C-alpha cells in the first residue's frame, strides 16, 4: 500500500490558523494529510505536544506562528522559535530525522503560502517514509 503520511500541524489562532482558513475559503487545493490543531499562540506549543504527536504516530509535525514582530502576545513566537531549535537538537539525538519537524511563519493573508507549505512538507515526509518511533516504542525486552 502506498504510504500516506500523517502530519500534525499546530497553528496559532491569530495568524496561521486564519491563513489556513483563507486557503480554504479561497478554494485552494492542498494535500489532506495535515490535521490541524489550533492553539492560541505558537508560544503555547510545549515540547510535550510535539513529542506526544510523534509518539502517537505522527510522521511529521508542522508548527506555524505569526511572523517575527507580529505576535499577538508580543513574544510568543520567539519562545516557539527557541523551543523549536532546542527540540531539533533533541530529536536528532533520539534518532528522529530533523526534517520531520518544521517551523514556518504564516500570516493571516498567506493562504497561498500555507497551501504550498503543506504540499511541500507532505512531499518531504512522503520521501522520508513512515516514522519508526511507534514501532520502536512497542519493543520492550
Amino acid at each position: 500500500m502506498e504510504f500516506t503520511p500523517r502530519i500534525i500541524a499546530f497553528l496559532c489562532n491569530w495568524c496561521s490558523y486564519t491563513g489556513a482558513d483563507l486557503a480554504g475559503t479561497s478554494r485552494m487545493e492542498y494535500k489532506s494529510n495535515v490535521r490541524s490543531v489550533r492553539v492560541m499562540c505558537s508560544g503555547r506549543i510545549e515540547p510535550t505536544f510535539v513529542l506526544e504527536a510523534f509518539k502517537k504516530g505522527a510522521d511529521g509535525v508542522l508548527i506555524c506562528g505569526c511572523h517575527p514582530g507580529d505576535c499577538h502576545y508580543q513574544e510568543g513566537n520567539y519562545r516557539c522559535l527557541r523551543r523549536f531549535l532546542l527540540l531539533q537538537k533533541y530529536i536528532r539525538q533520539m534518532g528522529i530525522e530533523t526534517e520531520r519537524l518544521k517551523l514556518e511563519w504564516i500570516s493571516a493573508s498567506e493562504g497561498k503560502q500555507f497551501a504550498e507549505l503543506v504540499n511541500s512538507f507532505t512531499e518531504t515526509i512522503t520521501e522520508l517514509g513512515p516514522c519508526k518511533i511507534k514501532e520502536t516504542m512497542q519493543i520492550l525486552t
Partner: protein
Amino acid sequence: MEGSKAKLKLAVYWASACGGCCVSVLDVHEKLFDVIAAADLVFWPIALDIKYHDVEEMPDQHIDLTLFNGAVRNSENEHMARLLRKKSKILVAYGSCSHLGGIPGLANFSTKEDILNRVFIESESVVNPENILPQPEYEVKEGVLNLPEFFNDVRSLAQVVDVDYFIPGCPPQTERLLEVFVAVVSGAELPPKGSVIGAETKTQCDECIRKKTENKRIKKFYRPWEITDDGYSCFMEQGVICMGPATRAGCGYRCIKGNAPCRGCYGPPAGVTDPGAKMMSAIASIIDEKEPEEISRVLEDVVDPAGLFYRFSLPVSLIRRKII
C-alpha cells in the same frame, strides 16, 4: 499484620542498581534499632544471606513492605520484580532507577548489540579473539550453565509490575524513608495507590534557598566549572543549567546546598509526565535572543540535551529510547 504484636516483615532488593539505595537504607544509623524493633528484615541481599529460593518458598503476600531499588535490565531483575510483587503486600519503587529508569536507563541511547560489542569485543582492555559473547545458556559436560538474559531496553519497575508507591531520589533521603516507614508501622492511613511518597508535589524552584529574581535572561550557558558561583543567587540566572524547574522537591536541596545545580533525580513534579520536555520549555524561555543564528549559538552550549534533561528519566519519558 495480624494482631498488634506481629512485627512488620520488611524486604529490600536491588535490581540494576549501584548499591547507593541500599546504603541510604543503612544510613538510618542508630535508628536501625528502632527499625528492627518494629520490623523483621526477611530479605536484603546486601546485608543478609537469604537466597532467592527462600523468597520463592514464602507464601504469597508474606512480606508487608518491599523496597525495590534498581531498574529492570535483565531477566533476573524481571524475575525478582515479579516474584517480589507476588510475595509483597506493598511494593515500593525505591530510588530513581526503579522509579524512572535512572542512570542505567541512559543505556536506552544504545542497543543490546552495541553494548555487548563495546564491552566484550571493542573495549581496549579486552582480549577476546574468538569474539565470545555472554550466552543465556551454555552446555558443559556437567550440565547446562545459565546467565540472566540481557535485555535491549532498560525499564522502570512500574513498566514491569504493578507498583504501589514511588519514593524518588538518587538515592532517596533517609529521613524521608523513615517518615514513610513510621507511617506504615503506625498503621496510619496510607496515600492512594500510585502516589509518589517521601517527596513534595511542587518543583525544586518553588522553595529554593537561592535568591531568585524575575530577571532570567541568558545569553550564554556555562558548565558549572566555567564560572565562579556567587554562592547565593539562582543557578539559572548565572547561566548554569539547573534541573530545578522540572524536578520534584523533597530532597532537602542536597545538591544546591553543596553549591551544585540540581540534576533532576527526584523526577517530574506532580502532573508532569516528561521532565525533559518541561526543561526544554524552561530553557528556551530564558534565552535572551531573537535571531535564529543567535539562538543556535546560545544552544551550542547545551551540548547533550537528551542526556542532560533525561539523565534519570529516559525509560519513562515520552520517547523512551533512541529510535532503532
